[in-house]
């Protein structure tokens, strides 16, 4: 998964620079699409909410849209390796305007299982138990 950080990279660009940057981005995107490298991609709206607190009682506006850290969109790549994903990210045209790309491998299962392998059996047992109860009801 590629996470695009810093959604306000276009500030201060002229209309023609912006147009060129968008054209380059679309070409990059089309190229990946033609090679069947894209499984999904979406831009995210600037506004959003951040939920925290033990019962989710804190709901604040966020993240700060102006932040260089804010995620502005994502792209799910079909890549053979982290190395290939990184090379694809490095070819992204708008890097030169200050956007950054976080490259994260997608996992089939939660990393908590990797840290606590004993959980896998316990959770599977519990899931089987719940199914059994549901089937019996």
């Amino acid at each position, binding site marked *: *998964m590629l996470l695009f950080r810093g*959604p306000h*990279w*276009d500030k201060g660009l002229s*209309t023609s620079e*912006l*147009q060129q940057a*968008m054209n380059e981005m679309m070409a990059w*995107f089309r190229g990946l699409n033609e090679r069947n490298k894209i499984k*999904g*991609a*979406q*831009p*995210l*709206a600037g506004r*959003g*909410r*951040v*939920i*925290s*607190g033990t*019962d*989710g009682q804190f*709901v604040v506006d*966020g*993240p700060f849209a102006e932040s260089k*850290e804010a*995620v*502005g*969109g*994502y792209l799910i790549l079909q890549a053979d390796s*982290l190395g290939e*994903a*990184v090379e694809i*990210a*490095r070819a*992204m045209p708008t*890097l030169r305007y200050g956007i*950054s*790309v*976080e*490259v*994260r*491998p*997608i*996992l*089939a299962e*939660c*990393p*908590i*299982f990797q*840290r*606590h392998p*004993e*959980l896998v059996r*316990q*959770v599977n047992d*519990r*899931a089987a138990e*719940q199914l059994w109860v549901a089937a019996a009801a």
Partner: protein
Amino acid sequence: MSTTTQSDYLLLFRGNVWDRGLSPAQLQKVVSDWMAWFERLKAEGKCAGGHPLEEAGKLVSGKQRTVADGPFAESKEAIGGYFYLTAVDENEAIEIAKQCPGLEFGSVVEVRPVADICSVKQRAEEYSERELAGARA
């Protein structure tokens, strides 16, 4: 990029160390609850998918296209995974986020509307229209 309805939301789960210090029973419960929550949302047609992300990753940035190891480990800000919610309004997306079993242990959920169009592309189009309007005047 494919078009979506305004009613799609991405939940980004932040914080990847909240499981440290939990007892095996607490861990088992939170992981089971999380999986049950995910399965229920999918069964209700409110979640199109989701994945945990590997903690290791890379950050690509700058004109030099520098590749650095991601600052993702041991961070309260790091994104640990995501759900893609479908056919919900913002209030329902927030209510769903509040059900996240990790909140109790310090996990934070970011709720972001999926956009129809990239905000930069939208600004680029607005600039062009303004220029055209200026040229006509």
